[in-house]
């Protein structure tokens, strides 16, 4: 029904139709009405009925808690009773001086950068490798995705068993005559962040490979055929055709990777727990906010940390959307479609 193009969709922040159920309107919808300006009550009712539940759920369980976090961040509050001890920006000033938070922020920064420079090239290489015709290709693609599907808890539990001092990784190193390389992978503060990167790469590289492979499938075969006719070698074809055309996919993967790295919680918390992470040098903003907010009972401060994490992610996301993804998508955050 192309009847409603007249009701120009302007992105005005009000008029969310959630609560606007008009009372005595008839549910029976008469057949097509060519409507050129505005929309009728029946349509409004439909909009409210169909999108209302989703909007209410979303406002109630996503937006409201985020706003509550911002509110509690202004209080020194232990989580019992109503927050009364208003401290204004004190929590945020504390964050500026809090070396534990600075450590966590630094670790997050490292994880963001290392995720990009480790996983990106590895995933590209693997995608190029797996994009060749070979026997058992589809099986291999499934297998490479397995770590991504396994729950973080299981991955964390398994790797902490593998990596403990008496664990299998050191055992294998001994067995193949590399006993000199054995180490305390989890507790040594010089190593732990690299151990974390190893586990992260193992877990998430399959996701990047699958994305890249899908991107490669969308590149028209004619291009590489034409290149082959012109006498281009395999590597020339990859470098001049595949990789440039894969640009949008890579940029979107990088976006997801950055956001994921900023929000990293599960694996660190499971492998290192709440206390060891800070001494091993793997704490993140998310593990820190949970440690403060839940385990230490500083709800107000924990929520201020959450707000800072949120703002950092949001700013990075907006900047990235504005300057990197601009050509790839119609910025989902900056104006719908």
């Amino acid at each position, binding site marked *: 029904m192309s009847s409603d193009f007249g009701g120009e969709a*302007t992105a005005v922040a009000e008029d969310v139709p959630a609560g606007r159920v008009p009372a005595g309107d008839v549910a029976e919808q008469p057949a097509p009405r060519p409507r050129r300006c505005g929309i009728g009550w029946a349509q409004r009712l439909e909009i409210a009925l*169909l999108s209302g539940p989703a909007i209410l759920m979303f406002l109630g369980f996503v937006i409201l*808690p985020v706003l509550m976090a911002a509110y509690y961040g202004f209080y020194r509050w232990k989580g019992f009773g109503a927050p009364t001890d208003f401290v204004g920006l004190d929590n945020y000033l504390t964050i500026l001086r809090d070396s534990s938070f600075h450590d966590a922020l630094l670790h997050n920064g490292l994880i963001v950068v290392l995720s990009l420079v480790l996983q990106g090239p590895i995933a590209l290489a693997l995608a190029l490798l797996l994009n060749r015709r070979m026997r058992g290709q589809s099986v291999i693609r499934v297998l490479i995705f397995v770590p991504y599907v396994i729950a973080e*808890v299981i991955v964390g539990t398994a790797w902490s068993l593998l990596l403990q001092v008496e664990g299998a990784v050191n055992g294998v190193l001994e067995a193949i005559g590399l006993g000199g390389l054995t180490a305390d992978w989890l507790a040594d503060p010089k190593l732990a962040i690299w151990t974390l990167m190893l586990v992260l790469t*193992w877990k998430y590289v399959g996701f990047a490979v699958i994305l890249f492979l*899908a991107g490669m499938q969308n590149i028209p075969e004619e291009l590489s055929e034409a290149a082959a006719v012109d006498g281009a070698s395999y590597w020339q074809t990859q470098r001049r055709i595949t990789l440039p055309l894969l640009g949008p996919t890579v940029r979107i993967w990088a976006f997801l990777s950055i956001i994921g790295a900023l929000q990293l919680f599960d694996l660190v918390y499971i492998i290192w727990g709440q206390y060891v992470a800070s001494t091993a040098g793997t704490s993140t903003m998310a593990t820190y906010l949970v440690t403060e907010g839940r385990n230490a009972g500083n709800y107000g401060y924990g929520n201020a940390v959450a707000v800072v994490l949120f703002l950092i992610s949001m700013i990075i996301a907006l900047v990235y959307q504005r300057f990197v993804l601009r050509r790839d998508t119609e910025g*989902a955050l900056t104006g719908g479609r």
Partner: protein
Amino acid sequence: MARNTPARRSDPLVHVAVLMLVGLMLGPVLYIVVGGFRTNSQITIDPAGLPDPWEFGNYADVLTGGTFWRQVGNSTIAAAATTVGVVTLGVMASYVLARYRFRGRGAMYALFAAGLMFPVTVAITPLYLLVRNLGLANTLPGVILPQIAFGLPTTIIILVPFLRAIPKEIEEAAAIDRCGRLGFFWRMVLPLSVPGLITTGILAFIGSWNSYLLPLFILNDHDSFTLPLGVQAFASQYSVDTAKVLAFTSLSMIPALVFFSLFERRIVGGLTGAVKG
């Protein structure tokens, strides 16, 4: 299937590389599974060896104890309810966003799209208090409701283009047959969008099945634990009994792996659809 690489016959280097890759990806998983068939003394003496003899007691213990099955049950209920909720609410809202024109539609889309940036981490402590005040602490609905809400953005982002792609002609034909928009939604949109619904449903199911932080806050009582919490509790309770932990861990991998291998094409398709979105 479009391949942009010329076929190269049996390049041995490529095969070796691929085999090593598969080994690296699967090695840890196989270690867990095989490790469950060993005894603790075998593991202590030779952390990297094969079972000798194969020991089935660890798996038998886990499978005959009630804990594992209760947690599988809890995870199944939570994941199934989350999936139904996300898909139902998601497709309704997506239909509005895809095929109605009204003031505020752009804002509504932006609201949900921005939800992609609100991970549960940021809101977790207020969310816990909210759920507690609703009297849902320590219950599965206390996990399910927030999971539905946090699953909506992805669902809507994937479904809106999908629903928009349904040709206008079908809608016009339906209108001529005196089928209202709701009737059209019920009789045409839902059947036509089944592939999209399955994709988003699978993503929601696996997300819920694997989720950790939210259950960690909401569920405190061992009886209400979902599988991820159960794995962690088991691992710390039996921290000296490595073999048993390995058995428990590998058994808890199975449901997600089975589910994944059944729907692998859909998941991969859904991810790429989301990226192209």
